[in-house]
């Protein structure tokens, strides 16, 4: 590994004003090469870097899209306690049952968000004309979608909506019925810590549904209708669900950029709460571990960018890292830049 922590922080401090954004053509080229060469021989994993005319020999660098930076800057400038209080006040005003619960609304679960993003990327790769994912990995999103649909069905039968508390027995029956369809949400939901992204919260004889999840579901349905898909109480098919989830993230980032950090945070918690079931190892690698690395290092140690070769070698996976990063960039999750090899070597040598 070139810049293993804590030296990734040292490297970032040295290069944060010294990287060059790659162009769309650069990224198209390297993602194709990466795909053609295969995951083990991709130049992105070369310890010596790669040549990019006219930049010369460079290392690839990934870092968060600028819009994400606003969130971390806000936490630093105004403090988490202030942001927490603002979000709670907004929930009080909207009458959400989560208001006043002393949840840490600033603690976004980046690993679960990454799982959603990973599932979306794989669905996109499978659906592209020039396919780069050859097997359906939609189970991660499909299973979570089915959990919420089953709960909604149960509540409809009881004449309730998702804003009401659901009798414990009814909720457990609904979720247990999913096991027959190879979906096993009870363990993951049960062990989730109480907090803003917990899908279901136990209140003795009753279970409360995360209100932010329901708002995300509504938004997904609206986006699906707008693109000509089905509406009503149904949910989009799994092959486009990933795209719609990425769109929801994109919208939330736009809201953040407009100053609506409360809406951004609640949307993030809704998305992470939506992912009620964990299933596929490959999705963990594409999404959870990769995305978590970027966000967690940023949040805990202020490391704003990671060398792609370190990320790729650490993941050591068979998916096309170049293609995955390209999609992440297209949807505004990350930026992709280049740093001269000499700059990196000099930073790490001192």
């Amino acid at each position, binding site marked *: *590994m070139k810049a*293993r*922590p*804590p*030296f990734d*922080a*040292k490297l970032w401090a040295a290069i944060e004003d010294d990287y060059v954004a790659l162009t769309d053509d650069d990224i198209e080229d390297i993602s194709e090469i990466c795909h053609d060469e295969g995951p083990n021989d991709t130049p992105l994993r070369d310890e010596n870097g790669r040549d990019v005319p006219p930049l010369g020999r460079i290392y690839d660098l990934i870092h968060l899209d600028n819009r994400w930076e606003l969130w971390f800057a806000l936490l630093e400038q105004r403090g988490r306690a202030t942001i927490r209080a603002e979000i709670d006040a907004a929930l009080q005003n909207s009458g959400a*049952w989560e208001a006043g619960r002393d949840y840490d609304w600033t*603690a976004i*679960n*980046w*690993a*679960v968000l*990454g799982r959603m993003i990973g599932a979306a990327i794989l669905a996109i790769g499978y659906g592209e004309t020039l396919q780069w994912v050859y097997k359906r990995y939609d189970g991660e999103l499909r299973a979570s979608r089915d959990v919420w649909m089953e709960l909604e069905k149960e509540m409809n*039968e*009881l*004449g*309730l909506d998702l804003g*009401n*508390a659901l*009798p*414990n*027995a*009814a909720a*457990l*029956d609904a979720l*247990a019925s999913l*096991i*027959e369809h190879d979906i*096993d949400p*009870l*363990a*993951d939901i*049960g*062990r*989730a*810590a109480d*907090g803003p*992204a917990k899908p279901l919260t*136990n*209140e*003795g*004889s*009753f279970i409360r549904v995360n209100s932010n999840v329901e708002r995300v579901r509504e938004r997904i349905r609206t986006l699906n209708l707008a693109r000509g898909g089905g509406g009503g109480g149904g949910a989009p098919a799994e092959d486009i669900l990933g795209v719609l989830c990425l769109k929801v993230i994109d919208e939330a980032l736009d809201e953040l950029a407009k100053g609506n950090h409360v809406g951004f945070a609640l949307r993030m918690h809704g998305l992470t709460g939506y992912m009620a079931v*964990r*299933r*596929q*190892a490959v999705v*963990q*690698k594409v999404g*959870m*571990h990769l995305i*978590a*690395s970027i966000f*967690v*290092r940023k949040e*805990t*140690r202020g490391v704003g960018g990671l060398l792609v070769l370190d990320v790729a070698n*650490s993941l*050591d996976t068979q998916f096309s890292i170049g293609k995955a990063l390209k999609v992440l960039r297209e949807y505004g999750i990350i930026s992709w830049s280049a740093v001269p090899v000499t700059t990196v070597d000099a930073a790490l040598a001192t």
Partner: protein
Amino acid sequence: MNSRKFKWDARSANAMVMLELQGFLERWNDDVIHPFLPRPPNDQDVQAIDWSGLDAWAAGNAISVDQSTIVAVRRIIDLMFQKKRDQLFMEELNNRNPSPDVGRMQQWPHSPLNGTGTGHESYSEDFSNDPDCRTCIHYRGISSSPVEYGLCRAFQELATGDAHGLRGTCDSHREKLTWKPKRYDLSGGIGYTDIQSRFQSHLDRRGNILPNWRKVARALLWMIENQKAELIDGKEARVIPTDHENLLVHLASDRAARVRLTQEWDVYIYARWGGEVHGEWRLQRAPPSQNALRYDLHIVLAETLGRAYQWNQANSEFREWGLEQYKARERLCNHALNRPGRYVTCYEYYHEYAVAGAGHMADSYQARQLQDVNAAWFRFKPTPLPEGGRYSVDPRLIRWREWNRDRARGHV
């Protein structure tokens, strides 16, 4: 049926997870069983038990692995606990009525039939005579043989407004409701059909036992061997299976046979899902804030069993799984134990994950505590380079390591 026999040697190098299971038994016996000898613990002993040792065991064993490796065992063990909980719940309904909330329910003023003599003033929990709300024209029953009770019972807390729920109308009684009766299985155990409904038949076309069934049977056998569960045949006689295949033979040939939890788990179920209501530990209407246990110990146990008994089809043997994370966390604890403040440096944190071949998990694990209450936490505090920061280590994980170290038990 494949009749090969399999030996398990807990002293072998491939016995790391088995050692953790041994640790569970020691903790359980010390903390849950021994304090009450010569009698077994009962459902009212919840608060007399110090659960923190088992909490530490759970933190040490709550690790993130490929879900496909553990889901089969987890499903079945969890189902066994659900059945036991249902059984205890029904026993409670039958044996401890009337509930202290009857009067409150009868006085609830918002029933659409209030004052007619058939509204909630007619509410009763005396099942033997006049089942609750039967006279209400909108009655919807939740049936269970031999007991049936009304949906309004399930909705009681909502109806009385305690959960900030329905007010002003009795939605639980609306005619359009198509309530599916919840049928409680009073046997309290799992049988062949329970497993079959999840994994199909236990044999493939050639008569070989399918891997999921082997894993589940081996995990259940561990529970039986260690008196945590028992196999009961259709005539309610206890049976001792000789190995996991023999257990499957019993279950497949006697569809009334059950594997059920032993009585010592009652106190866990009350600790996890019960609460103190009017001086008594109850499952019914227990406020979750009063749960003595805030995590699913049985899920961690089930997942540990799942990792202990992975079926390797090629070699026809059980193998352990998820070992590298044990090694990484043990090494981290070893570093922390040598320092005041119980911390590891940033370099050590990432290095030990990388050495264990789990470098990609080092970052995501820091977020894991948000999705798993059992997951050990590592809290970062910045320090200058070359240290580059310190992670304080969850005391539960430290305690897990110390417990193992005191017993000369280690993975690295």
